[in-house]
């Protein structure tokens, strides 16, 4: 299988990465060589094999329900692109 420039535009849109038509063309060619490499795994018969999501077969450890954090918003917002009155500012959200 191979990706079309439209596929590239679609996934670039999903990933919120601005991509011009020319970039999509170039990227398409590169991605297709990578997907050719990936395609080699698709012939493998994996029926009955359980997917492996984690390196260790262990279960989640849980944290007790307790408040352990203090207010550090001043330090966190000192490195923010735009803040006002303790709020992060972004271009107007239209719902």
């Amino acid at each position: 299988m191979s990706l079309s420039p439209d596929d590239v535009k679609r996934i670039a849109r999903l990933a919120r990465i601005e991509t011009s038509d020319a970039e999509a063309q170039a990227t398409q060619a590169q991605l297709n060589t990578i997907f050719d490499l990936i395609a080699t795994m698709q012939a493998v018969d994996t029926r009955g094999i359980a997917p492996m999501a984690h390196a260790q077969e262990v279960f989640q450890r849980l944290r007790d329900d307790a408040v352990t954090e203090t207010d550090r918003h001043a330090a966190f917002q000192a490195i923010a692109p735009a803040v006002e009155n303790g709020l992060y500012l972004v271009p107007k959200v239209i719902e």
Partner: protein
Amino acid sequence: MKWETVIGLEVHTQLATKSKIFSGSSTAFGAAPNTQANAVDIALPGVLPVLNKGAVECAIKFGLAIGATLNRVNVFDRKNYFYPDLPKGYQISQLAKPIVEGGALTIVVPSTSSGQSEERVIHLTRAHMEEDAGKSLHEDFHGMTGIDLNRAGTPLLEIVSEPEMRSSAEAVAYARALHTLVTWIGICDGNMQEGSFRVDANVSVRPVGQTEFGTRREIKNLNSFRFLQQAIDYEVRWQIETLEDGGRIEQATVLFDPDTGETRMMRSKEDAHDYRYFPDPDLLPVRLTDEWIEQVRAEMPELPQVKLAKYRMDGLSVYDATALTSSRATAEYFEAVLASLSPSPSPGGSGEQAKLAANWVMGELAAALNKAELDIAQSPVSAAQLGTLITRIQDGTLSGKLAKQVFEGLWEGAGEVDAIIEARGLKQMSDSGELEKIIDDVLAANPKSVEEFRAGKDKAFNALVGQVMKASRGKANPAQVNELLKGKLQ
């Protein structure tokens, strides 16, 4: 054409934990912006989530309460999308292996036509844990939007019903029953204004008799039962009108505007996100052991449906039993009243007392609380006081009418029942000699009524009873008056 409405609800309940689902930040409502958003909540590079045991226990309680399957191994997934109130660019949720699957909730739907309420069982699809997003504040910051991440990471249980409701009344009854249950078992504070209990309604219509579902539209974020009702009613009307005008329903997400009472399109199916769900590699599968589940079960209060069944065994009507189990505080108050009755109700013979107690809790007390805008937990009249009051009715000390006067005294804080009866002279007249004298006086003063009674006019008897009661200043026992009066007139 006759149409049938099909409704399924997705309810987001904020879980009543102290800290967030994946961080140690406080979940308290109303703090200054971003003061309860730590490194994990604002998604600094490198931070990792650690699951809150308390949130999982809330989900276990819910699963137990609705008789659902608790998945012994359940998994957190990432739901990927960009939004400024979603700091990581993904929401941690559960898709393929949620903690709770199945279960059911019995609802009581007040029927409008017959006046008879009707019980229905609504099945649940699933309930899963996830994190809440932050808030976008659209007040004007030089044309920008402000983002407050205090709410980001608050634990949610998303509860999904099967599409089994057939009217807005059923949807509201289900939402209310669910609200009662989650507050009852203490997993959610139920505060709808603060967004602790938010409802999304999936609504479709189809011609009666058709088996396939119609195309549904999802009404997002309804934060009151009234809006839920209005939004569904509007949406159903709109869908039927659209179809009858030859139009088609497109799958869409809509918002309800309480000001106009209308729903409006938020996004169509074409704009629907491709969320690219996959298991969160930062979080290992969650295991629920039988031992843990039993521990959680042991901490749970008796459930509303269990109490409801018990009350019905005591002879209460569905209506009464439903009302008394509308909140845990009401049921607990009612049971405390029963427990303080003297003599305490005996099994099997308690029906009359239970009915009397129910009438007082839902009648006089509820009316007074409602008027004063108080919750039953804040009632100035304690359950023990109400119990004593009812005991005094049963032992003949008080008539119903006098009891109401004593209740007023209790409400005002005038002291205990017996002291109020004493101080205000409200004791029912039980001395038959005194009563006979009053009756003789009344008979002597009303010869016309006596004559009419003897001529066969029953109404005249009632007039005489009224006169006796009036002369006794309400303290006569009406049954006793009846009996004595009949004797004298024969």
